[in-house]
């Protein structure tokens, strides 16, 4: 990345707009034409677009870490899952009795746990030869105390109407308010992780964050008191109207009629357009801030650090502190996208947080789009997400053509049945091809 490649010189100013137009054409084709390749349903097209926009926000966060600072965070899925907790904790209705069952004790336990860690971190540099023993004793005592306070509280909360609740419950505040909270949750975790792991070499950092991601997802899955764990948390409030309310609105059928759609279809499209506008607004705001930061003295410093840490350090820049800063900001954006995702889905299903989909696919988006370039990351996200969804459909269609000469039997059925998995191969191929032949991505950094 240190040398300017021919590809960068060749990049014309029309490149990015043309590629964005191409993605727009793909989405419009999906919405209008009905053939072997496209579904011809606006609901599907807008659904793809909406998740693409959310992925674009995630990709922007990853691009800040990788493109601005060269940090390989392989635990994106965990920070998304943390952000996803925010809508549950902020905007679902309060659970009757949950706070009385053990809320205060729970907060006390969490404070105790954090206090132990803080105390250990405080004692460590201030003690001499015995610091290993001292910190070990603090940690063990803290753990015992924490479990003593924590376990009964959790048992009580989870026993509170376990069939339909069993969680601590939300605050009942508007769901849009939970998006910045999701960002803050992820940022707090990122600060703690970054404090410990950012001194590490590039691929050690990748492995450490891989672990963080797995652990956070495990917490969301297993700590039922937060958001009911694998029992899922549904009924998260929406920032846009419900389809049913639209359909019952007196003037809506007429509007649908004028658009030439059935009432059900028109209401779905209406809701999805509402989401799309919200997501686009957030995306543009994040991009605006990111571009301003990138073109400021701060952005120049970040790129200087990325391109040569030693030289930047010699110039008096605090490399570790800047890394921590950008790591926290990037993870906050990832957390924001997690909160948006859960709001859009209306349900928190922790088992869906798979690293391939939420960590490595996002990485493919950033690399393909062009690391270091915010518009590139957005383009990569929209394009790769479209392909990810469509290859699952195109794979079996292609396999159907390929296996047509085979006699009907087990082999053919097996091949047809597993054809949707071809999308993993396609994504890997795209990543490898871009990495090799256009290492600066579709829209290279200027």
């Amino acid at each position: 990345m240190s040398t300017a490649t021919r590809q960068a010189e060749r990049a014309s100013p029309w490149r990015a707009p043309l590629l964005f137009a191409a993605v727009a054409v793909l989405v419009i084709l999906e919405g209008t034409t009905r053939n072997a390749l496209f579904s011809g349903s606006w609901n599907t097209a807008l659904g793809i677009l909406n998740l693409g926009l959310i992925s674009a926000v995630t990709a922007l966060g990853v691009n800040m870490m990788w493109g601005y600072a060269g940090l390989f965070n392989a635990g994106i899925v965990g920070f998304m899952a943390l952000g996803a907790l925010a809508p549950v904790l902020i905007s679902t209705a309060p659970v009757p009795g949950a706070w009385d069952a053990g809320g205060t004790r729970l907060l006390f336990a969490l404070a105790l746990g954090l206090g132990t860690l803080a105390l250990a971190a405080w004692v460590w540099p201030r003690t001499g030869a015995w610091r290993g023993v001292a910190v070990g004793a603090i940690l063990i005592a803290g753990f015992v105390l924490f479990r003593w306070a924590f376990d009964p509280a959790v048992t009580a909360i989870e026993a509170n109407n376990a069939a339909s609740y069993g969680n601590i419950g939300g605050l009942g505040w508007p769901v849009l308010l939970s998006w910045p909270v999701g960002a803050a949750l992820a940022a707090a975790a990122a600060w703690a992780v970054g404090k410990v792991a950012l001194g590490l070499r590039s691929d050690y950092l990748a492995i450490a964050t891989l672990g963080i991601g797995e652990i956070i997802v495990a917490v969301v899955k297993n700590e039922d008191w937060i958001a009911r764990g694998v029992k899922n948390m549904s009924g998260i409030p929406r920032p846009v109207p419900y389809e049913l309310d639209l359909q019952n609105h007196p003037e809506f059928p007429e509007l649908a009629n004028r658009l030439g759609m059935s009432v059900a279809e028109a209401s779905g499209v209406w809701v999805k357009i509402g989401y799309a506008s919200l997501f686009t607004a957030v995306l543009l705001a994040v991009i605006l801030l990111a571009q301003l930061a990138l073109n400021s003295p701060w952005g120049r410093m970040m790129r200087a650090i990325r391109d040569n840490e030693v030289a930047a350090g010699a110039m008096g820049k605090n490399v570790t502190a800047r890394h921590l800063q950008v790591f926290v900001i990037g993870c906050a954006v990832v957390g924001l996208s997690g909160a948006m995702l859960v709001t859009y889905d209306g349900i928190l299903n922790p088992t869906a947080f798979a690293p391939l989909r939420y960590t490595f696919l996002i990485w493919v988006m950033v690399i393909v789009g062009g690391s270091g370039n915010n518009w590139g990351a957005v383009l990569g996200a929209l394009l790769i997400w479209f392909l990810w969804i469509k290859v699952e459909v195109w794979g079996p269609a292609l396999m159907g053509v390929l296996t047509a000469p085979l006699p009907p039997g087990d082999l053919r059925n097996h091949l047809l049945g597993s054809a949707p998995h071809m999308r993993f191969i396609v994504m890997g191929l795209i990543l490898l091809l871009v990495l090799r032949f256009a290492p600066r991505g579709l829209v290279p950094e200027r």
Partner: protein
Amino acid sequence: MDLLNALVAVLNFVVIPATAYGAQLALGALGVTLIYGILRFSNFAHGDTMAFGTAMVILLTWGLQGLGIALTPLPTALLALPVAIALTALLMLGTDRVVYRFYRRKRAAPIIFVMASVGVMFIMNGLTRLVIGVDEIRFDDGARFIIGVADFRRWTGLEEGLALRGTQVITVAAAALTVAWLFWFLNRTRSGKAMRAYSDNEDLALLSGIDPERVVRQTWIIAAALATLAGTLYGLDKSFRAFTYFQILLPIFAAAIVGGLGNPLGAIAGGFIVAFSEVAVTYPWRKIAAYLGWESDGLMQLLSTEYKFAVSFVILIVVLLFRPTGLFRGKSV
């Protein structure tokens, strides 16, 4: 008597499972550490290589079973291993040729190799899913138990039972044989010495006439063999699911780093350290405490089993912070 019961319970629930798991992790970590030592990057595709190799073993096992060939009392999978290893090695050599060799010639940064290995991971994951699907598969035929719980109780008259599964013994035996062979290869043969020389100092090795491509080829073949073996033993011991193999990437990396990346002896020690910590921390000790005369209301479980990854993670972080080259002085490039 209670002391004996406690001892048997510890053996049954901690020592035996952790030993088998440790052997599997050690084999996986050996593969990671070899690739790191020779090719100088952390291979994120290693978990999916294990999955692919195991998928090959399962397919061949089904084929053999279909032909009525069995290896009783041993599992048929062992018979399928050599061919599966050859297939996996071919795939690895092909991958190296079309993916990694380009970056090696360019002397690209390690992080670019890691990115490329993520691409390879996607492809191998897709291939495995395409070939065998995502369902859970058990393929351990042959004798299941060497010592059964009921038999053990009858022989000893103890309250606690002890079970020793065939797969656990096979795992440890196979791992021991492989490790012995690997160390003989690395320390006694010309190729092995060339490999170590290349790992220590690439330029010096090139100057003394070692063919780098040959060293790299041998590394991939050995890594494929280790990955397939580790994956198969893990699958025999527990069960095969493509997705769990991605998850054990973390303990495997932890094992390799704890021992010192690039250091084979460290990988083995690391595998057992991680396995024993994982099992000991997630095991509910109440029963054993009761035998020792200490009744408790709680389970006396430090962490629930779902958080076993946290254990490898904490070990990993502690070692990286306080001894970044690992316990056995690996590389710290």
